[in-house]
């Protein structure tokens, strides 16, 4: 089996995990009619808090719990501003991103005095890779053995959780009463209101779910993928997730494919650093880096298909008196 391909796909899976959590978070929020460009900020604060809590309390699970709480607090700030006070959703999202960026560095320096980083996490303070059962048995099968050993086994638990969460999101959004109402409130909040349901409560619920998912995504970045928090470590993952959400047209499985595509590009980018390809020359990695953003712009412009957002997204719902 081609080792280069296996390694790249393996890295793709690791890169896609935070994207999946964040884009599913965005899916709930935007499907309910609330634009969420604060995914990045929520993941960043979650990453910081998870690393801080894991380091202080010595357990990644406590880190994960703290991260979820922190991210949910930010999600509720977004809700308070945009749902309760009908504020501009973009402005609120920008505020959340900037506050998260500043707070993580300020609190990091004040608490740990290491220039804004958290202490490096020991192995029992972070999520480690798990070897799935049966690796040594399946190993005897030629190609399948390699794939199972290298690609499927050997990730940490949050990677598997991310893969499980997508069907769950699909089920919740398309097969439950809550999901139906969620979609309705993002398309036509007035109808939902007329049916006697609270638009505000539904949107708060959606944001809360988003907060939980961003919390897990952030914790993955700091306590599973890496072993400490460093300045601005989410590095735009929240925005790539937003791009994936749009690229995937707000549908769980298509969004998942977009996450895989963008992570594959990222994995490729790492492996093509200063590699000279015969006949083409050195590919500037910056070009690959920009591809997800360029693709999203092209899609939004309607040159490859059309991405139609939920109808009521971005508009605060003002109940008539």
């Amino acid at each position, binding site marked *: 089996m081609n080792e280069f391909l296996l390694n790249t796909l393996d890295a793709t899976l690791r890169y896609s995990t935070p994207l999946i959590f964040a884009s599913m978070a965005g899916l709930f929020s935007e499907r309910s009619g609330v*634009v969420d*460009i604060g995914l990045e900020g929520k993941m960043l604060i979650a990453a910081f808090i998870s690393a801080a809590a894991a380091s202080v309390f010595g357990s990644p699970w406590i880190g994960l719990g703290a991260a979820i709480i922190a991210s949910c607090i930010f999600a509720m*700030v977004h809700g*308070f*501003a*945009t749902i309760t*006070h*009908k*504020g*501009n*959703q*973009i*402005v*609120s999202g*920008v*505020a*959340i*991103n*900037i*506050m*998260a*960026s*500043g*707070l993580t*560095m*300020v*609190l*990091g*320096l*004040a*608490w740990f*005095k290491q220039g*804004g980083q958290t202490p490096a996490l020991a192995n029992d303070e972070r999520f480690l890779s798990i070897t799935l059962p049966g690796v040594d048995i399946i190993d005897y099968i030629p190609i399948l053995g390699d794939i199972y050993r290298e690609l499927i086994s050997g990730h940490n638990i949050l990677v598997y959780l991310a893969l499980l969460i997508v069907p769950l999101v699909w089920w919740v959004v398309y097969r439950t009463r809550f999901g139906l109402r969620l979609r309705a409130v993002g398309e036509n909040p007035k109808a939902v209101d007329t049916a006697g349901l609270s638009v505000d409560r539904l949107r708060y619920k959606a944001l809360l779910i988003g907060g939980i998912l961003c919390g897990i995504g952030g914790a993955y970045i700091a306590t599973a993928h890496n072993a400490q928090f460093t300045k601005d470590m989410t590095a*735009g993952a929240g*925005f790539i997730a*937003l*791009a994936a959400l*749009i690229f995937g047209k707000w549908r769980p499985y298509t969004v998942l494919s977009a996450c895989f595509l963008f992570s594959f590009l990222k994995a490729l980018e790492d492996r093509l650093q200063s590699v000279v390809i015969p006949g083409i020359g050195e590919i*500037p990695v*910056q*070009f690959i*880096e*920009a591809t997800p*953003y*360029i693709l*999203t*712009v092209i899609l*939004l*412009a*309607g040159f490859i298909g059309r991405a139609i*957002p939920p109808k009521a997204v971005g508009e605060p719902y003002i109940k008539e008196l």
Partner: protein
Amino acid sequence: MTRDTRLAWINGLMLPLLNVLTAFAAIAIVFVFINVDPIEAAKIVIYGTLGYEEGIGYTLYYATNFVFTGLAVAVAFHAGLFNIGGEGQAYVGGLGVALVVLAFDPSISPWIVIPASIMGSLLFGALWAIVPGYLQAYRGSHIVITTIMFNFIASALMVYMCVHVLREVGQMNPQSKMFPETAWLPFIHDVFAGIGYKIAPSPLNLSIVLALLFSLLVWIFLWHTRWGYAIRATGKNTTAAVYGGIKPKKVIVITMCISGALAGLVAVNELLGYQHRLMLDFQYGYGFGGIAVALMGRNHPAGILVAALLFGILYQGGMELAFELPNVSRHIVVVMQGLVILFCGALEYIYKPWLVRFLAPVEVSE
């Protein structure tokens, strides 16, 4: 006072003031949280920014950037557009400056090089905004998302340019070679020295004059020209604007051009004025800061000048704090920016019902 004037006072002055005060109260809580006395912090900030000549110079130098990005955001706001791509437009504006400066021979007069490179910053900033503007107007893609994407594309582009194209020969650092001295915008302390006054050196340069000039131009443009009227009409009520013979699509593209050009001017202050070479992330944070400045300044050039000064104080004050108190990160100013955007932007009307009830109750007609 009639009810309308009272409402205007509430909207124009009291709300922004109360919102900023709330943001300050929130930052005080952050200070208490990290064991710093907020009063002591305030003293350090005030002395460090306004207490001595060099501090004032730095404060005004930072404020200059915020004037440019604040104006950029405000012009777009008036057309109902949210340009959060100031970061990318300022960054690419830097490319315009560098390409123009490095294309000229060092022996050519500053009277040609400097205006040409300022034009370069305007042009490249506008170029980076025209595509999202066009896509919004003619292809219906949302300006917010496109400008976010363009920020990241700009970042990749600039890294590529700094690493592969413009990097100084034989240097490891991803930055261009030094601009020839003929392309440097004079420092204010040099200008003052020229007319016989001696003031402490600081990065403050003639860009601040440019910032004041553009504030005036934006004011005249928005409120006293046909185009400005078209922009404001489109922002207030697109349907009515169409009825009045205005073409909103054209207005959107032109507004974004102007907005991007204004953001591009950050490069003039940073590169022509102080750094004197193209470097990575020279615009870092000013684009987003501009959003806070525009929101706080109520999208009016006068308000923006005040807000930009406040942010200049916060920026320089943040540096001073970090210097004086080892426990405080200079990024405290970033937190402050976020809080201002939250309270002056997303929560801008939080006090309004309360103020209106007490100060301008609905008058019962006879």
